[in-house]
């Protein structure tokens, strides 16, 4: 149902150059994008970053419409941010709208904040869209490995993330099923006041928790039955490989970040 419109966190398998990149490259690339978005100031800078993001979307061979739709669930936050910036920034007054004043500075800031947010969302959803959850957590685990010495439980964190990511779709599916079953018995999740609605969630939440705990139990038993005992000495079936395509991508992104970051 409506949950399925969320593109953030979804993965669309494919064989584009972006899909083939090592997850570490993509994670670092996304980190660079975030750094860049917060250091760039001015429209030319944003335009260049937008161009770069567009190029990556094109290379990823994902349908544009689908990628853009990932913005929809965050529309409220986006509009709120832009609105607050446009109306609440002091400066040279352009025009008045009822009790709201629009200033030149506000308009500029609102537009920039909006662009920044949009690019941030698009960039991060590109990461998850083109990287399978397993690759993603593998990447994070290897990137965190050097910090193990200072007590960061890299493997455990990665395993927790893998499991959490793996179970998000399952839980959404389960939620949908239970909702349907209760709606078939006349449950109403939409109308009524706040208390009424909170109460109407009980027939949904109780079975959902019961099933989540059942699944957790089953998973723990299945993992132990197959000899899982933490990260020590565990080998990998699919080793991550930092190839030539990654080197090229890395050099390009670092160069782009430095150049755009310094110039604009």
């Amino acid at each position, binding site marked *: 149902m409506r949950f*399925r419109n969320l593109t953030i966190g979804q993965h*669309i398998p494919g064989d584009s150059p972006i899909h083939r990149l090592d997850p570490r490259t993509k994670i670092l690339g996304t980190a660079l994008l975030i750094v860049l978005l917060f250091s760039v100031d001015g429209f030319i800078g944003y335009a260049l970053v937008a161009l770069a993001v567009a190029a990556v979307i094109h290379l990823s061979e*994902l*349908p544009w*419409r*689908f990628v853009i*739709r990932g913005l929809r669930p965050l529309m409220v936050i986006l509009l709120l941010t832009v609105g607050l910036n446009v109306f609440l920034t002091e400066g040279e007054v352009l025009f008045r709208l009822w009790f709201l004043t629009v200033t030149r500075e506000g308009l500029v800031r609102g537009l920039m904040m909006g662009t920044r947010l949009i690019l941030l969302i698009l960039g991060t959803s590109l990461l998850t869209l083109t990287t399978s959850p397993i690759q993603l957590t593998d990447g994070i685990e290897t990137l965190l490995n050097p910090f193990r010495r200072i007590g960061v439980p890299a493997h455990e964190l990665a395993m927790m993330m893998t499991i959490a990511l793996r179970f998000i779709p399952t839980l959404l599916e389960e939620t949908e*099923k*239970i909702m*349907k*079953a*209760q*709606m*078939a*018995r*006349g*449950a*109403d999740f939409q109308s009524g006041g706040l208390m009424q609605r909170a109460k109407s969630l*009980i*027939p*949904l939440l*109780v*079975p959902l928790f*019961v*099933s989540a705990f059942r699944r957790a139990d089953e998973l723990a038993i299945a993992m132990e039955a197959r000899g899982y005992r933490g990260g020590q000495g565990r080998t990998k079936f699919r080793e991550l490989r930092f190839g030539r395509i990654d080197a090229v991508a890395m050099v390009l992104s670092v160069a782009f970040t430095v150049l755009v970051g310094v110039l604009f």
Partner: protein
Amino acid sequence: MSIRLENVSYRYLEDTPMETTALAEVNLEIGEGEFVGIIGPTGSGKSTLIQHFNGLLLPTSGKVWVDGVDLAHKDTQLRIIRQKVGMVFQYPEHQLFGETVLEDVGFGPQNGGLPAEEVEQRVRRALAYVGLDFEELKDQSPFELSGGQKRRVAIAGVLAMEPSVLILDEPTAGLDPKGREEILDEICALHKERGITVILVSHSMEDVARLVDRLIVMDKGRVVLDGTPVEVFREADTLRELGLGLPQVTELMHELKAKGLAVNTDILTVEAAEEEIARVMGGQR
């Protein structure tokens, strides 16, 4: 209470790369008091189809009428439709939530706005239908019951709304043979005594052959066969192509015929097979 579908198509995840057409141009009419079986291979759209019968899913294109009411019309009160068209999902015990059996089974009628005494009456009747004792169970937690009892309580939760159409999606999946038989017999009794329409999705040829008056075969979102069980099982080749096969006794009769015994192959039960073989063999048992 009749259900009519006209050119109904349904697509999941429309406009995404994962779009799947689960129903394609389905035309169907199910009349009052029928006992209909729906079979088809995994992923053929059975569950999607039945969710159109009470408006849990609305068609991507096409129309559904229940009792002459267009479900997609903006004035249609789906909650009222759902009180009349009861639906038991696969593994219905996964939807249990009440602190007591009484609370859980009473959830449906309560949502229908009935007074407490009437709700209790309905719970009592519904539990009796699935062979459970009201006095013994009403204050127990549904989570402490055995698997088979949980299933019965969950089915009672739908029966308590006293719907005039009852839809069941593989109600016996995961039960032992005795439990399966009992639950199916109870459903059959309900159909006979109260005259309600029953629509049963099943993977078991034996069960549908034994119970239903009309059998609908689905494949790839389409209705490929629709008729009495005897008519449908005459299309043995189509069914085998779909990986569905025939009930074992019917299969046996087909093989006997292939071996040269002039038996009638329109046989659905062991008793009928016994009689037919005896007849052909000249009355000796």
